[in-house]
Structure formats: structure tokens, C-alpha cells
């Protein structure tokens, strides 16, 4: 692709004897915000560290802006990395933290002051310039960490779980912040997360990873509405996944006839797609929880557990009740593996 900015080619990454990422190929476009999404241990953080140069690949190549940087050490790659722990220097003030990288470049003092002030200003931290990181709130610390990386004008900005340490409100703020930065600077951004909601909200494209391999690569829309594997479906919220044989759903040694035709081997439904109070299947309610806008139910059915969710305004049900439910063709996701 002509606008490929970062290219991972046949990348193999290992810790000691354990091969974490066997053979990764990925092209990241210039200016895009791409998410590496997956459960812990899937290799997403390892891949990010390899891009940063903090980990040497066993084999393969990493290209940034058409240059092979595989052998280039971490301090010469021109990449920014915002750590999950923020990694702020506790012995330096906010100003000095942001100035750190610039001072290493031996820029003129006036230059440095100008750029740092501006960087702090953009992040709304100008009034905290003299404070030490330990005297700042979590949200401020993260913005400081971001400012420190951005002031270096990196070619690529990597972020490790940028929203996971924040409470719900701050998470929203930070999301907007990251999107703003991306819009204004056009930096290519790669962020790592285990939270599908984060990835869906922020990313232009999502790389869903499992066991060091790419499970599915696509836009948030594609992943949300059309996952291609059971793992992807499960990860993205299709909590009801069943095997289909001869137009029947199979589970727990039981079979229920399907109400529609399909050639898929597996079918998946989101909890919201399950229709309650009518339908040809029956089950007992084992669990009820209130989630604000929705009520969620765990139903014990012959084929196994079925998770359903209805708008909270709908009538309630108690644990122990028998309830009818329906697995419709609308909202059914067809999967082959």
C-alpha cells in the first residue's frame, strides 16, 4: 500500500524460549489510529514493544516510513510511547519531564522552553509546570505522559492501555483528548487494549489478536457486526455461540430445532438479540442483573446457558421463573469456525 507507514514483516517475537508472536504481518497506514485488541497474553503488548525497539525480534523486519529499523536501538527510532504506568520521572517537575527528550537533543534553551510551554498548554497542564508527578492526579499524570511524548514530534505514537487506569468519567475525557490530538497532528497512532469498547470507540481499524496471530483485521463496524470467528464473536460481545448441525442448535447434549435456514456451522447472538417472553424455546432464569439501561438475564436452557438483555422498561422477571425465548435470524451472526 502506498500510504503504509509502519510495516511489520514476518515478525517473530520470543521471551526466552517461549515464542509469543510466531509470524506477524501487518501494515499500518499513515495517520491512522489503529488498535491492537485482545486478551492478555495475546502478544499485543509484545508487538508494541518490538515496534518501539524495546524488544529485539527473533526474525522479521520492522519498517517505519520505508526505512528498516529492525536493528535501530530504541533511543534512535523517533517513536513515542505512553506507558500504562505513565513512567513519569518522579525526581523531575512536570516541565522537566516534558523537556527531558528535548534536552537530550541539545536544542537551545529558548526553543525548549517554548515547545514545552506549548505542549503543557495543549494538555491543560500549564499551571502545573513546577509540580512533581507524585503531586498530580491520575488524569493529570497521564496527560503529562502524553505531552512528554508528543513534544518530541514522533513519527509514530504508541500507547499502552491508555484508558484502563482511569475511572469512567476520565476515560471519556481522555478518549476525546486522544481523538483531538490525532486530528490536529495527524500522527500515526497505535494503541494496545484489552477493552473492546475502547477499541471500537477510538480506532480507525482494529487488529484483533489471539495467541500472537491476527484473528481479524477490520474497521470497528466490521468487527462489531461481522466477526469472522467464534473467538472474535465472543470477544466482541456475542455471548451466545452455538454449534449448528442439520438445522438444529446443539448444546450440552441436547438439540433444539432452528426457526430458520442456515448453512453456517455456528451461530452467534448478542444478548440484546435474544427475544424474551415469546418463542419456541423454554428455560429457567438463573440470574438477573440491572445494568442501567438494560436488564440482563442468564437463562438455563437445554442447550446450555443463554444470556439475554432487554430494555429496563420491560417487565421484570425473577430468578427461578420459567421463560420462553426466541433466537431469531435477525441479529444472528453466521460463523464457519
Amino acid at each position: 500500500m502506498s500510504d503504509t507507514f509502519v510495516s511489520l514483516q514476518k515478525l517473530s517475537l520470543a521471551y526466552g524460549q517461549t515464542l509469543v508472536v510466531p509470524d506477524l504481518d501487518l501494515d499500518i497506514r499513515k495517520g491512522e489510529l489503529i488498535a491492537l485488541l485482545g486478551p492478555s497474553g495475546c502478544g499485543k503488548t509484545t508487538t508494541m514493544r518490538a515496534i518501539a525497539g524495546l524488544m529485539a525480534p527473533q526474525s522479521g523486519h520492522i519498517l517505519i516510513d520505508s526505512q528498516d529499523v529492525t536493528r535501530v536501538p530504541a533511543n534512535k527510532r523517533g517513536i513515542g510511547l505512553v506507558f500504562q504506568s505513565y513512567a513519569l520521572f518522579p525526581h523531575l517537575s512536570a516541565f522537566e519531564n516534558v523537556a527531558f527528550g528535548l534536552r537530550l537533543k541539545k536544542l537551545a534553551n529558548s526553543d525548549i522552553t517554548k515547545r514545552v510551554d506549548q505542549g503543557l498548554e495543549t494538555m491543560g497542564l500549564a499551571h502545573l509546570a513546577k509540580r512533581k508527578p507524585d503531586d498530580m492526579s491520575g488524569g493529570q499524570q497521564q496527560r503529562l505522559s502524553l505531552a512528554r511524548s508528543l513534544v518530541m514530534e514522533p513519527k509514530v505514537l504508541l500507547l499502552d492501555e491508555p484508558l484502563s487506569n482511569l475511572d469512567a468519567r476520565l476515560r471519556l475525557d481522555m478518549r476525546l483528548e486522544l481523538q483531538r490530538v490525532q486530528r490536529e497532528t495527524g500522527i500515526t497512532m497505535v494503541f494496545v487494549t484489552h477493552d473492546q469498547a475502547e477499541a471500537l470507540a477510538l480506532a480507525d481499524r482494529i487488529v484483533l489478536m489471539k495467541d500472537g496471530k491476527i484473528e481479524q483485521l477490520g474497521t470497528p463496524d466490521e468487527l462489531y457486526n461481522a466477526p469472522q470467528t467464534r473467538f472474535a464473536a465472543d470477544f466482541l460481545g456475542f455471548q451466545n455461540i452455538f454449534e449448528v448441525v442439520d438445522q438444529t442448535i446443539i448444546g450440552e447434549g441436547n438439540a433444539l430445532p432452528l426457526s430458520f435456514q442456515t448453512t453456517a456451522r455456528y451461530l452467534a447472538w448478542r444478548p440484546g438479540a435474544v427475544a424474551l417472553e415469546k418463542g419456541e424455546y423454554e428455560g429457567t432464569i438463573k440470574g438477573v442483573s440491572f445494568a442501567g439501561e438494560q436488564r440482563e438475564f442468564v437463562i438455563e436452557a437445554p442447550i446450555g446457558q443463554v444470556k439475554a438483555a432487554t430494555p429496563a422498561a420491560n417487565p421484570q422477571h425473577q430468578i427461578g421463573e420459567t421463560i420462553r425465548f426466541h433466537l431469531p435470524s435477525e441479529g444472528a451472526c453466521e460463523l464457519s469456525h
Partner: protein
Amino acid sequence: MFQNRKEGIALALPAAVFTVVLFLLPVGILLSEAFKVDGLWSIQGYFDFAVKPLNQTVFLRTLKLGFLVALVSAIIGYACAFCIVNLDGKHRGRVFGLIVLPLMISPVARTYAWIVILGRTGIVNDTIIGLGLSETPIRILFTETAVFIGLLQLFLPLMIISLVSAMENLPSDVIPAARVLGASWFQVFTKIILPLTKDGLVIGGTLVFTGSLTAYITPAILGGSKVLMLETLLYQRVNVANDFVSAGIIATILIVMSFGANLLLKRIATARA
């Protein structure tokens, strides 16, 4: 339940009294000899002591070696600590155990080994002659170098332990963060590691320095009477010349220096807490 102070004092008293009566008093009296001349209080003894060239040499040598051992152990210590901290758990424990092990072994055994190594017919000389670097064995024993080596081996573990502890407390990821921002390894050391571990460095340095000051066996065995340090001089003054005044003076100097170092340590410990 712990309001009754008298109870507390009663519990702590035996230990305190024991130490004071059976220890501090005798020592105090002995030290006071240093302040007396012909039975009268005076610090003339100190002047007489300070004036003699031998005493000056010994004093300066003791200080010099103390600093040198502290400095070299700091350099080696940082290198080691950095490597240890990057090891994985199982290996780290084993290496750490091996490093601490020598501390448990009697200084007599630890020092004696050096005689075998540094002596005229020892390994070092055998190697040197074998490689043709010298015709005759060179004297290493009974030089400051020998004492230095012995002290270094004795106290290096203390420095390493102190630095490893300090480095383990570094905030996570500050080193990779500095690297990504462009720092070379040397810059990472000077700008990040050194400032953030300086407490550990001071603690280790003080332990090593005071240890070297007050060491007896190692200077005695490896330095003998050719390379006198304050403690071996002390012993010599008492054993050979029955000169308790000098002994008291030297002891007071050592105690003051140790005490000063310990105060410094405590100041740092409370600042951290």
C-alpha cells in the same frame, strides 16, 4: 492497651540497663582516658597524637582506603545491581543468595584466602611469572593494595544489596521511557538511575565506609605492621606499648566517625519514610 508507659519502660529496661552497665560504662571509662593527661582532664593527648607522622599516615591511609573501597564498590555495585534486577525471579534469588553468602562467613576465612592468592608463591604471582611478566615474584601482600582488595571483597556484598534494593524500587518503566525519549545508556544512568537511587547509594556507601574504617582482621592479616590502619594501630599501641591513651584516642576518633555516619543513615531513612 498500650497506654501504660511504665509497663513499656519496664520491658525495655533490662536490655538498656544491661547494655549501659556492662558495656557502655566500661567503654566510656576507657575512652575517658583519652581525655586525661596525668589524671587531669585535658585534650593535650589529642594534640600529641595528631602531631606524630606515623599517626597522621595511618589516619589518612584509613580514610583513603575507606573512600576508595566505597567508590569502587559503588561502581561494581551499580553494574551488578543493574544486571541482577534484570534477571528473572528464580535466577535472581540464587544470585542474590550467592552474593550474600560471603557475609555469613568468618572474616578470618575470607581474608586468609587472599594470602594463598596474593602471596609470593600464590596464584597471582605464579601467573605473572608464568606469563613472563616478571622475573621475581612481586610483593602484593602487606601492601595497601592487598588490604584494599581484602576490604573490597568483604564489603562489596553490602553495597550490592543496598543498590539492588534501591533499584527494585525504581518506578516501573522509567528506564524504557527515557530510552524511547532518546537517552543513551550512559544518560539513562546519570539522569535517571543515579538520582533515583541515591539514597541506596548513600546507605551502601556509609556501610562500606564505616566497615572499612573499623575493620580489624583484614588489615591485620593482609597489611600486618607494614600497612597499619586505625584499628590495627590501636591494637598495636595496647599490646606492644601499653599505651591506653592512644588507644582511647583512636577509639574515640573511630566512634565519632561511625556515629556520624550512622546519624547520616538515620537522617536518610526517616526522610524516605
